[in-house]
Each structure stands twice: as C-alpha cells, then as structure tokens.
C-alpha cells in the first residue's frame, strides 16, 4: 500500500530551479553572516585573552587585529553584524504577522542592505 512509487516521487523545486530574488539572497546572506561571526568572535576573544595575559602578548595580537588585514576582517564583521541584526529585526516584524506582502518584504530587504552599510559607516566614524 505505502510502497507504491517509493523513492521515485517528485521533489519540490529547490535553489537550482528558482530565479534568485531579493528575499532568497538576503536570507542566504543572513545565514552566511551569522555563521561567519564565529571567526569574529574567536578574534575578539583571542584579543581579550591576550589583554589578560600581559602587555607583550597583547601588543602582538592587537597589532595583528589592527593590521590592514585585521581592519578589513573587523570592518566586514561589523558590516555582517549589522546586516544580520537588521535581518533579525525583519524576522521579528514578520513573526509578529506584519509586512509579509511582497512589496513590504522587498522594501525591508533593501532597507537591510542600505541600512547595514549606513550603520557600518556610522560605527566606524563613532569609534
């Protein structure tokens, strides 16, 4: 009865079928930025532990994290953090039952992208 056509059933369309759209791309980047934060967390905690272990080791790690490459990684981390935060806000709005139509979703999508860049500049200026 239940064995009819087992394993040969149609699959729902996936990434390779759908044309990329703002909602899918912003969603994928929420996942990427969130998980990439692991690297940022390791760097910041490493820097904190270096501060705890003494001035000499701190200078080495602080120099590393404020080098050109370090600055680039930390700036991208801030951008990723703000992007992920704004994406989270969008999800909180969606979870409350608001803004679920395509027009509002797209508007919030662009808001996330532009907002995260703006907040990153603001952060870099402020500190």
């Amino acid at each position, binding site marked *: 009865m*239940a*064995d009819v056509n087992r394993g040969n059933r149609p699959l729902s369309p996936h990434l390779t079928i759908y044309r990329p759209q703002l909602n899918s791309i912003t969603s994928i980047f929420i*996942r990427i930025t*969130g*998980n990439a*934060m*692991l690297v940022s*967390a*390791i760097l*910041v*905690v*490493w*820097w*904190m*532990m270096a*501060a*705890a*272990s*003494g*001035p000499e080791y*701190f*200078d080495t790690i*602080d120099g590393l*994290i*404020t080098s050109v490459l370090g600055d680039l990684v*930390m700036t991208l981390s*801030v951008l990723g*953090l703000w992007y992920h*935060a704004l994406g*989270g*806000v969008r*999800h*909180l709005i969606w*979870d409350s039952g608001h803004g679920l139509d395509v027009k509002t979703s797209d508007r919030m999508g662009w808001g996330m992208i532009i907002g995260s860049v703006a907040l990153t500049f603001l*952060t870099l200026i*402020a*500190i």
Partner: protein
Amino acid sequence: MAFLTDRKRVSGLGSARSGTGHHWTMTVTSIALLILTPFFLGIIGTGLGSEHGDVIALLSRPIPALVVAAYLIVGSHHLRLGMQIMIEDYTHGMTRKAAIILSTILCYGIALGGLVALIQIAL
C-alpha cells in the same frame, strides 16, 4: 524491503518536538543582542588598537565588563543554535552529530574564554 514497516522507515525522521523552544530562544536572545550590540561595538571598538593599560582599565569597569560578558553568553547561545540549524540543513548521520558537538564546544568555549579573560583583567 517488504519486512520494513512504515513505522520503522519514518522513525527518527519526524519532529523532535523542540522546534518551538528553539525558535523562541532565538527570538529572546536576538532581542537581547539587539539591545547589547551598539554598546558592545562601542566598548570593543574603543579597545581595539588602544594601549594595554587603557584596555585593562576599560574592561575592569563594571558596566563595560557586564556588557561584554552578557554579549558573550547570549551571543554564544544564539550562535550555537544558529550553527546547529545550518549543520542540520546540510549534513547527515555521523558527520552531523560530530559537527553539532564540535560547534557546541567551540561556541561555549569562546564565551568561557572571554569570561575567564574578563575575570583575570578585573582581578
């Protein structure tokens, strides 16, 4: 094949009944992180590139230490749950289990490393 019952085939493939709790934890932690993020960025941003003595002075103060500690604890919990979902989406079987265990150790390890550093700085 014919000896496998439908019950046996679906066993372990259904809901673990923890999805709602997972989602709610992510909601609560995300709001906490939203509040903490500007302050956390301010503290760490000020500290990066500063003299060693200034960083020690900054992280010895109770409010900055509280913000950083709270951010590490809540953040690592949020990160762990997020990584778990990604791992569950893309891996299976033993790899999945190993990856979830590893990421859990890593997330809480990072938080604890930061907390130990905070305590050492404060002492």
